[in-house]
């Protein structure tokens, strides 16, 4: 059963107009509308006191989130049905998704953001949005029985929390060890012989690794470029996905509302600073397993490939550009940088074009990227292999993303030829 989306949009637009004219308050008579009342109204907020994993809170157990590492996911009271982290967030939780997502072994991801009542998220043009202290992001990974039917049967495997505490972000992994609750998995968890049927009807079988708590930092941090012997700066932990360009897309909310996520947040008083000229907001292309790569125009192919490389690689493979001065991704020291905002024409070598592999390499793959020859491009090999000596990304992938690899293969093969390209 799906809601009638067009009718909902009409109702929503009407209510927003009213909100704009009425100047706030409970101007809406539609309880599901984002307008009028903040999305996180009634959500509560951290009190500043030391929390308890046993606290019986009506809503989110904010204090425990802020100070405690709880043994069970349910201790934090993030979901109305503690056994279901895929829906029904406790009051204030807002679901979202990304236009192009990190590949995680074909799992479906259920994301919610919880912002303390009275706080708003600050807009950021290119980096992760500025989530206030107290923010909690939940991401639940579930492996569908069939990737073509993600609404069908699935295996809920793990829920990861990103928590913005007063001393910075931290992450906790919870593994669904039973039907009713997920338990803290500091040392991670390896599941063997999981399987799914992919969009091509093939049965895929692979191990799945719930990352260790320490692994989270490997992808989620930016690291200081130590400038001298006395430079003691530390790495900074950050969210990756919730950037404007990935949120800038329509989302179907539980009530059937279909609405651009950034505008929904802004109008729901959850996001401040969204530019009035909405067309100026970055927008990453949509890519998913349903995308028909063969039918893409060159510019669509480029846009989607760049989004895919950005969200799958550039959390580590990034340097300069929109980062804080003096910081880089964990692979910022590598020669390959794949950010969405990097201009290809400025330095194709930064995308690996005609670049010798430095820390790595394999016979038969002379350069990272050989325009026109994906088959012998080491980057292509690395995103396809599951050999841990070579595979990329290093973490969170145990199987080969056929659809994503095809996208990158097609992109490499249509890049402008370079000096290392095969002679036409």
């Amino acid at each position: 059963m799906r809601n009638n989306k067009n009718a909902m949009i009409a109702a929503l637009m009407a209510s927003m107009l009213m909100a704009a004219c009425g100047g706030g308050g409970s101007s809406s008579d539609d309880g599901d509308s984002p307008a009028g009342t903040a999305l996180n109204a009634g959500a509560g907020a951290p009190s500043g006191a030391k929390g308890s994993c046993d606290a019986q809170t009506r809503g989110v157990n904010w204090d425990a989130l802020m100070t405690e590492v709880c043994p069970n996911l349910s201790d934090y009271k993030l979901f109305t049905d503690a056994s279901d982290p895929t829906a029904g967030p406790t009051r204030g939780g807002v679901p979202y998704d990304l236009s192009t997502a990190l590949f995680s072994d074909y799992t479906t991801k259920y994301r919610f953001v919880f912002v303390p009542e009275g706080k708003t998220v600050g807009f950021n043009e290119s980096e992760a949005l500025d989530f206030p202290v107290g923010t909690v992001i939940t991401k639940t990974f579930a492996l569908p029985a069939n990737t073509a039917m993600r609404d069908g049967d699935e295996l809920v495997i793990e829920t990861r929390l990103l928590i913005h505490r007063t001393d910075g972000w931290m992450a906790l992994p919870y593994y669904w060890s039973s039907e009713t609750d997920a338990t803290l998995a500091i040392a991670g968890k390896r599941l063997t012989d999981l399987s799914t049927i992919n969009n091509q009807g093939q049965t895929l079988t692979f191990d799945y690794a719930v990352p260790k708590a320490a692994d989270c930092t490997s992808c989620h941090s930016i690291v200081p470029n130590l400038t001298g012997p006395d430079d003691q700066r530390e790495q900074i932990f950050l969210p990756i996905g919730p950037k404007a360009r990935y949120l800038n897309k329509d989302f179907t909310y539980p009530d059937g509302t279909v609405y651009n996520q950034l505008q929904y947040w802004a109008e729901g008083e959850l996001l401040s600073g969204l530019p009035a000229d909405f067309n100026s907001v970055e927008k990453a292309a949509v890519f998913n397993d349903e995308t028909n790569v063969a039918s893409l125009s060159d510019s669509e192919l480029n846009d989607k490939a760049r989004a895919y490389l950005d969200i799958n690689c550039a959390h580590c493979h990034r340097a300069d550009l929109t980062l804080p001065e003096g910081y880089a991704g964990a692979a910022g020291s590598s020669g390959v940088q794949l950010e969405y905002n990097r201009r290809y024409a400025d330095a194709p070598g930064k995308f690996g074009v005609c670049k010798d592999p430095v820390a790595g390499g394999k016979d038969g793959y002379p350069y990272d990227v050989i325009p026109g020859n994906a088959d012998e491009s080491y980057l292509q090999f690395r995103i396809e292999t599951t050999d841990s000596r070579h595979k990329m990304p290093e973490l969170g992938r145990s199987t080969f993303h056929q659809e994503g690899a095809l996208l990158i293969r097609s992109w490499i093969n249509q890049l402008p030829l370079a000096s290392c390209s095969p002679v036409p």
Partner: protein
Amino acid sequence: MRQSHTFKKLLLITAMSGGLLLAGCDGDDGKDGKDGADGQSAGGEASSPLAVTTSGFAIPGDAILVAPDAADGDDITEALSVALFDLPEDALVVLPKGRFVVTESIVVNSASGLTLTGHGIHETVLDFSTSNGDDAFRFQGGNGITVRDMAVYEAPKNGIKATNVNGIHMTYTATVWEGELEANNGAYGLYPLKSQNVLLENNYAFGSADAGIYVGQSENIVVRNNTAKQNVAGIEIENSTMADVYNNIAVGNSGGILVFDLPGLDKAYGGNVRIFNNHAYSNNAANVGAGVVGLVPPGTGALILATSDVEMYNNQLTDNATTAVAITSYLLVDDDLANYPANYGATMGDGWSPTIKNVYLHNNTIARNGDDPQGALLQPIIDGYGSNMNSKGSPQTFPAILYDGIGELLSNTGDLAGFNALVGPDAQADGVNYDPYGAGDQICANSNINANPAPAYDEVNTGLVYPDDPADVTQVDGEGNPLPHLLIDQMVNNTYLSCLQPRLAPAVVNFRNNIYGCTGDDLAEAACAL
């Protein structure tokens, strides 16, 4: 529409790990105090040592013990992961005695003052041969970290990687891939990257398909008293600045000691690297490596590639079948100069240069090299020196000191002057340019000792593939480009590379507020007086 869920029933993580974690986070167990231990001695004066490692490091009684009751062959992955998560400052974490299995990468973030110790390089062995992860250990961020008295075997990728750490000390630590040197023997062994204050000493690196001991994009580095055996590269200093490499042994590798500046890296170039009082011998292993290191000719004692400001002295370079020391520009790797702006323009802007300047080789003892020169990279040069196609017109013993000279020649002819426009302001200010070489840019070799046994004294040669003086160019192709001249002469009383350079400054490592290296704890070390 609600999807139905099926939940996989699996065991909880062990009660032990949960308990450990909570204790660590609450910090109220009274045992996580700051013991102030430095790299040299445990400071737990109040408690008697729990044990003393084979290198003499006393483990205090209040150390954090990882799986202390584990038996040989046990999998200690979970205990290790949990113990190294969310560490207190200045933690001292002890691995058990014996040989254990680890099945995942062990990642440590932002550790401050951590000492991770086993009971000895032979006494605590961690076997990663069945690991599902990649690196064995990876330290990301942090400061003042010591790894000691342990061995890491058969890592799927790197052995011990430390990235963006200020103060990384590895001592009495081994990274080993047993058996033959094979292409799938992981990647780097001991691997500090993008770090400051790097101290690698008393370690053993064996069997890496890349570099056994590798320091990349780092600054203020001391590498001493290590043994690197049967790796593709024994010891490699890459895009790194202020490094002293001394009192090491590099044996049985494809290349013994490498100093590289490679294009395209975030730290675009290194320099001020001193290689002294090392013994690089019999580095004749077949090269099974890939990427740039795969180009290193088997039989190379030392290779200095595109790194300027390198001083190499008082080393013993013997029994290397290709050459004792090769000094080359990057043009030997990639001679497609027309495409340098397209392929390397950005990194050249940051100061990487294919040329090599100010390399000073002196007082090295050189013997019995060059009897079977190999390597695709050098093949035309090898063929030329081994035939009558060289400056002497008859087959010669391959040069023990080989300098390609092409970057210098093309700088001196002005053919590279166009690259000056690529060099960014910071690099320009640091002296990076493509002007003709001045006196301070020269490659110099003098006072090196020919230790060949009689009657083979005359087999220690210095070779220049290209003359450095445009006036000496006598052979050109149809388009006027200089052809290899393959100049060769005896090393002693040399005509080639006969010049002097100023000595380079010593490296200084400040680790936990102690100074290491020739200006610090090794002030009285003989090698530091050379």
